[in-house]
């Protein structure tokens, strides 16, 4: 699984391009989704990951 496009050789990262990651569905766009690690303090934010979104469906980048 290759999440993000890495620059050749150097440090740094970019959001996924989501090119052809949503099957036939279009448009396919990268979005942040919260990952719920279970019971959390109410004021705490959830960690987030990138997914590819088309309509209401999410796909792995």
């Amino acid at each position, binding site marked *: *699984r290759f*999440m*993000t496009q*890495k*620059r050749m050789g*150097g*440090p*740094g*990262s*970019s*959001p*996924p391009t989501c090119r052809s990651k949503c099957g036939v569905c279009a448009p396919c766009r990268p979005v*942040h989704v919260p*990952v719920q*690690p*279970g*019971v959390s303090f109410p004021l705490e*934010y959830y*960690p*987030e*990951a*990138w997914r590819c979104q088309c309509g209401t469906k999410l796909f792995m980048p």
Partner: protein
Amino acid sequence: LVLCPHASSLNDEGRALMAIKGSFSNVVNVLSDWGDVHNEDFCSWRGVLCDNLTLSVVSLNLSNLNLGGEISPAIGDLRNLQSLDLQGNKLSGQIPDEVGNCGSLFHLDLSFNLLYGDIPFSISKLKELEYLNLRNNQLVGPIPSTLTQIPNLKTIDLAQNQLTGEIPRLIYWNEVLQYLGLRSNFLTGTLSPDMCQLTGLWYFDVRCNNLTGTIPESIGNCTSFEILDISYNMITGEIPYNVGFLQVATLSLQGNRLTGKIPEVIGLMQALAVLDLSENQLVGPIPPILGNLTYTGKLYLHGNKLTGPIPPELGNMSKLSYLQLNDNELTGGIPPELGKLEQLFELNLANNKLEGSIPHNISYCTALNKFNVHGNHLNGTIPPGFRNLGSLTYLNLSRNNFKGKVPFELGRIVNLDTLDLSSNSFSGPIPASVGDLEHLLILNLSKNHLGGPLPAEFGNLRSIQIIDASFNNVTGTIPIELGQLQNVASLILNNNSLHGQIPEQLCNCLSLTNLNFSYNNLSGIVPLLRNFSRFPADSYVGNPLLCGNWVGSICDPYTVK
């Protein structure tokens, strides 16, 4: 022990299920169809799923049924069980060793129960296991290093237990593991460079443990990680340069003892959605290159020792919704460029050494919900454009050098629940429009130079819990309309120039527990009704013409009648 009191034609698995039921409690309503007398077809029992051909139990799902009691060792007699889901009950006791006999098990979820004791080593006999979730129990002892003997384990979630010892290094040499959740235990030891051998892992979470040592220099090799959460441990040393090779969307390093500067290379990590370096001992400036993070929604740098200015480049972080830079040693002004952040929801700059005025551009941040600049050296006036911040619920300008009038436009920010202007140099009258803030819970105007009367419109603050206008030059009488405030718990009006009587209507404020009218020019008789009889004399001291039930009062109200 007779587990099945009735003569039964159930086979071994049926009897095992009856034994399992026998060690549960609270089964009356939820497992009423489990019985060997009226219903011998255990494949039809609630939560039981059998293989169509062999009629052997392959799945047992009794999640969220409020079951008590324990898990019977008879679970080991369900030899073909593939999935066991008992999450969300109140099961106590230990996880029986016999669970290791369910050789076909690939899904084991015992999370959100009250299980205690060690994680049985027998789990490592489950060679088909892909999903192991034991989170939110009271398990103790170490993480069995033998978990590494399970070849296809994709998820390990042991969070929210009381596990001790080190994270077994061997666990990192698992190419199929995708999810490692160990947060909120008592794990010790250091982060091993071996963690980057987890080439299939996307979720690494050791938040809230007792881990020590430094972040491994080789951290950049963990290129499959999407979420790296090592927050709230005792990690020391600097953030290594190689962190810049990570491809993570969430980098949570907060609540450790990290020192040194924020590495500039973080500004190249455009896949970051959340960057949290807060509550460490980081020094030096905020690198302007962080402005490159145009996809980042949350930036938390609060609670460090950061110095220098807020880089105007942060205004380029167009997706930013949370910016918390509070509790540092930042200097200079608030950059007007922050006004470009159209999605900004919370801006917290409190407790720094910021100077200058609030740029009017901040009022372009129309999504702003919380704005806090408490405890700086800011001056100037409240920008009139703030009336456009219709989403604002929290506005805290306290402990600065702001001056000028409190603009009547503040009354247009109808969603405010907290308005704190205390400890500044605001002058002029208190605008009556503040009474339009019907959702206001806390109003603090204390320690300014405000004059004029208390607006009668304060009686419209139907939600208000705390009103503090102490240490000002407020004149006039206490408005009788304050008697309409059913939720007010604190009414603090001391050290002003109020005169006249304390209105009896205040006795209708049944929630009032904290009252301070001291050091004014009030006169007449303190009301004696209801909770007013309970306020101490300190609430009224310094009003020489006020009569009350205290020593030295100019009259005794009990005899006046």
